[in-house]
């Protein structure tokens, strides 16, 4: 009888998911061989584990006392085996590290969630990582010192790899929650000091604010943002020579309420991780499965992780990375729509847009917090949705510029600054643009200029309408844009699918691009999915068929999936 499977366990311990390397979990003498045998995407993410290097306040160890803290040795190992590494410096409590990454002498005030519960996360080895509040001024002071030490160490040892600031999030009930989010007394004490300072500077009438819960919430958010940006600033300034930007990761199973499910041996189910995984992609995070045990990461979850969190996907999130042809010629997630929310997490939900996209264009939309378009680069032909409420004058200018460059835009006029509404009217009149107006649930106006389209509407008219009416509204409006996409009927619970595309190669010149849909059955039952045939698409082949039967029928393709089954289907797309 085999009692243990040491090799597999050690691989999962050291490489807990995707391209992450938890180097401190193995002997430094094995780093080189581990890195050379690693099969995952590049670059390898190497977290900077503050608590590892700084066990006591006066001691900073980078290989002086313990070899496992020797980042130079690790860097040299990677160089020797030709493996690119990127260092990740956590800018928030890191759920995959003991104490959230903090040295134990600083781990004093537990992070508290909105239910008043201390936040703890189970790692992939069933250890409990407790998170601590980053609002403790002692932590910030020590972080500043640590960043300077890391910077000095990297420069003295000629370690030339990129350093990224890593922000950690989890997904709870479809919403992203930062590990910076805190309701502890430590947070409240800091917030009181913030209010006192504002009152002292004459920026705040404290009495008035205390009687307005809405105002307090806004101020708390501002305070939180300010503290986060202090950490970001310190890290960026200290490590400027190696600094490559910030990356936002969302950890599967990292939610504060996930602990109840994950500590039970009879509860955890991989299908819940599927919706988290796909939800994270719509929020534009890099999903990470490093917290999940190997036992839970079986097919089809492990397959989906490999297909979705692929090297091109990771590279596309790395800000300073040249997103060269090598990656753009590979399969990338299809994104038809970008929804700009102006920091309002409820935007586009009340008006039914999100529900419509979830039904008709599953996982092909991305939420964006801020408009950040580089007009010098190609910005694609995505359809962009903007909320007028909170739209700044400069963002409005960018919207107009996008439109003039041929973008297709939806603009919600509800709550939009009156001055900007007038500027839009004037712009249409002055340029004699073609404008069609209809009244359909909401006043709708379609302005066109060459390829560019702006469709304006008022979400306030939709909010109280029945869901079916909202869905119909969006179906009608989006049909104006003539999006070419295949329809999949796989609405049975537990069947998920995800679209990728890549440009056609020299052997596929009949097609403009190749679209791939990967279908996964996460249940213990047989399931079925149908893809209706459509103009502009030709079925090419099945890829990586596991426990699946694919049948061609006169009306399209039928996929019969056994429990845990998965398959990818390639279609050629032509105009």
């Amino acid at each position, binding site marked *: 009888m085999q009692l243990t499977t040491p090799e597999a366990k050690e691989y999962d311990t050291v490489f807990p998911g995707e391209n992450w390397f938890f180097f401190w979990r193995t002997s430094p003498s094995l780093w080189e061989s581990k890195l050379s045998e690693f099969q995952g995407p590049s670059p390898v993410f190497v977290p900077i584990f503050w608590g590892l290097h700084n066990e006591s306040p006066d001691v900073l160890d980078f290989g002086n006392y313990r070899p496992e803290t020797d980042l130079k040795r690790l860097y040299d190992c990677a160089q020797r085996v030709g493996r690119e590494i990127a260092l990740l410096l956590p800018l928030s409590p890191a759920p995959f590290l003991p104490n959230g990454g903090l040295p134990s002498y600083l781990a004093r005030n537990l992070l508290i969630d909105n239910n008043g*519960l201390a936040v703890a996360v189970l790692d992939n080895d069933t250890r*409990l990582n407790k998170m601590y509040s980053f609002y403790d001024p002692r932590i910030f002071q020590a972080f500043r010192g640590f960043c300077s030490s890391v910077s000095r160490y990297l420069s003295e040892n000629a370690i030339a790899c990129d350093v990224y600031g890593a922000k950690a999030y989890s997904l709870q009930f479809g919403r992203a929650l930062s590990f910076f989010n805190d309701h502890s007394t430590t947070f409240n004490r800091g917030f009181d000091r913030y209010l006192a300072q504002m009152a002292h500077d004459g920026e705040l009438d404290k009495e008035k604010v205390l009687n307005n819960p809405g105002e307090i919430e806004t101020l708390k958010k501002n305070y939180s943002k300010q503290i986060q940006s202090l950490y970001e600033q310190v890290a960026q300034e200290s490590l400027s020579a190696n600094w490559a930007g910030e990356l936002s990761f969302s950890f599967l199973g990292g939610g504060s309420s996930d602990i109840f499910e994950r500590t039970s041996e009879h509860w955890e189910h991989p299908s819940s991780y599927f919706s988290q995984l796909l939800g994270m992609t719509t929020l534009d995070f890099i999903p990470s499965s490093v917290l999940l045990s190997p036992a839970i990461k079986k097919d089809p979850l492990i397959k989906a992780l490999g297909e979705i969190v692929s090297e091109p996907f990771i590279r596309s999130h790395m800000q300073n990375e040249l997103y060269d042809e090598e990656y753009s010629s590979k399969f990338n997630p299809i994104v038809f729509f970008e929804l700009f929310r102006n920091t309002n997490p409820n935007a586009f939900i009340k008006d039914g847009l999100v529900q419509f996209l979830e039904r008709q264009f599953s996982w092909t939309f991305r939420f964006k917090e801020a408009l950040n378009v580089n007009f010098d680069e190609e910005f694609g032909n995505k359809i962009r949705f903007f909320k007028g409420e909170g739209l700044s004058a400069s963002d409005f200018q960018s919207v107009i510029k996008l439109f003039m460059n041929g973008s297709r835009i939806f603009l919600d006029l509800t709550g939009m600054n009156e001055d900007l509404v007038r500027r839009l009217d004037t712009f249409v009149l002055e340029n004699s643009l073609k404008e069609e107006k209809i009244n359909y649930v909401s006043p709708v106006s379609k302005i066109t200029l060459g390829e560019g389209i702006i469709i304006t509407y008022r979400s306030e008219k939709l909010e109280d309408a029945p869901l079916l009416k909202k869905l119909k509204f969006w179906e009608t409006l989006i049909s104006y844009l003539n999006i070419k996409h295949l329809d999949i009927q796989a609405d049975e619970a537990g069947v998920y699918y995800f679209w990728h595309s890549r440009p056609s190669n020299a052997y596929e010149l009949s097609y403009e691009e190749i679209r791939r849909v990967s279908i996964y059955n996460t249940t213990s039952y047989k399931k079925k999915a149908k893809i209706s045939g459509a103009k502009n698409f030709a079925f090419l082949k099945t890829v990586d068929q596991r426990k699946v039967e694919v049948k061609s029928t006169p009306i399209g393709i039928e996929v019969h999936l056994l429990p845990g089954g998965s398959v990818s289907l390639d279609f050629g797309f032509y105009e």
Partner: protein
Amino acid sequence: MRKNLSLNLLYRILNEGEDSSLVEIINFFSEEGPVSSKVISDLYQPFRFHNEQNLWFKTLEDLGQFALEVCQETHAAEVFILSNVDYNIGLDTCNDARSFRELFRRYGNVIENPDQSRKKSNLFNKFFN
């Protein structure tokens, strides 16, 4: 849900003002998953005094009574009731999944389901009397 499981109930006290407070359920689950929302919703009706979605109670006694009724309805052996404050204290002593699973048993107040304990004693009577 299997019979004779242990339920765990996590609550917090919300201060509504100087003189009034509410007891709110944060989580109610067993090792097999959350307690069925239908069971909760049906048994909560007599305790309901508001129109919100939240599971609020006027007193801890009401919460205990509700927990017992859920226990009886689901044929659970017992329910461990724990406040968020005690949860946080207990969590500080946990290092892994196993110690976390013991948290409710170690730090919570237990209410036994009399129906299930009677059944247990009957079983013993059958063998030993």
